[in-house]
């Protein structure tokens, strides 16, 4: 237990032009090792062209217990969507 390496979250960019996406986690002693392990574990079949690793303890997340309040404000604002507007017959490029 005393020597369990820290945990890292792994993000892989599958091709240039796409964002990095979370793929899982792993243990490694330092960042360099985390990147190498991530390559060996998550890109064995050309799944990536770039990898980010972030120590799991450095990830800050929203609290699911507060999800309703936290995300609530955007729920009833349908006017933020183009679909809530009436487009008069014959009007184009709108």
């Amino acid at each position: 237990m005393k020597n369990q390496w820290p945990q890292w979250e792994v993000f892989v960019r599958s091709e240039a032009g796409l964002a990095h996406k979370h793929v899982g986690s792993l243990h490694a002693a330092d960042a360099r090792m985390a990147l190498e392990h991530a390559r060996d574990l998550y890109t064995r079949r050309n799944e990536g062209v770039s990898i980010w690793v972030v120590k799991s303890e450095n990830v800050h997340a929203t609290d699911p217990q507060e999800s309703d309040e936290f995300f609530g404000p955007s729920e009833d604002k349908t006017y933020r969507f183009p679909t809530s507007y009436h487009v008069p017959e014959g009007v184009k490029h709108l």
Partner: protein
Amino acid sequence: MYTQMSDGIDGQPNASDERERAFERRLERGVKIEPPDWMPEPYRKTLVRQISQHAHSEIVGMLPEGNWITRAPSLQRKVILLAKVQDEAGHGLYLYSAAETLGTPRDDMIAALHAGKAKYSSIFNYATLTWADVGAIGWLVDGAAIINQIPLTRCSYGPYARGMVRICKEESFHQRQGFDIMWKLAHGTPAQHAMAQDALDRWWWPAVMMFGPPDAESTHNRQSLKWKIKIFTNDELRQKFIDQTVPQAERLGLKIPDEQLRWNERTQHYEFGPIDWEEFYRVIRGDGPCNKDRLQARIDAWEEGAWVREAAAAYARKQAERGAVA
């Protein structure tokens, strides 16, 4: 969902009951559960047990095949087998990391395995006596694993389901390379054909048992189905495996060692002979051909690797200190 933990005074429903109902409604709606979400303790425990056992199976499962890497009959077969065994290591790691999201450190799970407290799939307690066994494992054992694992890509726990998606993509290579070995042997010299048949004879029943005890005896079945950490019952999956595999054996020109095996036109399923559950429980209890060797090999690898883990941790600490000073 907003309620605090309370003792349910004044006829108010208990907060944990409330959360439990919310959890069940969520499962019914097919919304996945993610690591920070509230979940009932038995759900968490069952998942940790199931996922860590699955992880242990992947890791221990490297041993019977690893046994043949240096003796593969050609360089091509050797690189294939090496890649397959490496994949299994990866499967173990994906699964440990999925289980860790439930709050159990990986080292604790590994300690439980080494202490003999955690189980792994009993199939890996059988010996790989010939090269054909490597073929039979890929074809039958990985084939059974696929049938088990594909439904789990839809299970209710997000990290487990996502891990299964990655794993299933890799498993079909495993099964095909195994079938390919069997195909070559079955169409080779009479001695090679006999070797393939012998492997099928020895691996068939253990593979059929991989789906676990019959539904009537399975204690976890019902609750796991309700929680959607199991989608089909043991017997349903077993039947599917047999229905899929029998025609493959026929194409190979090999005979499945079951005198009672026959196609039922009415049910559109194969009927099969009785399974020796005594053997299954005996192997699970520790009396299989290789239980001791397998566990000892894992313990040795862990202990002999301890200095590497310590050295890397010490090096990382030192680098961090230097960085802090500079």
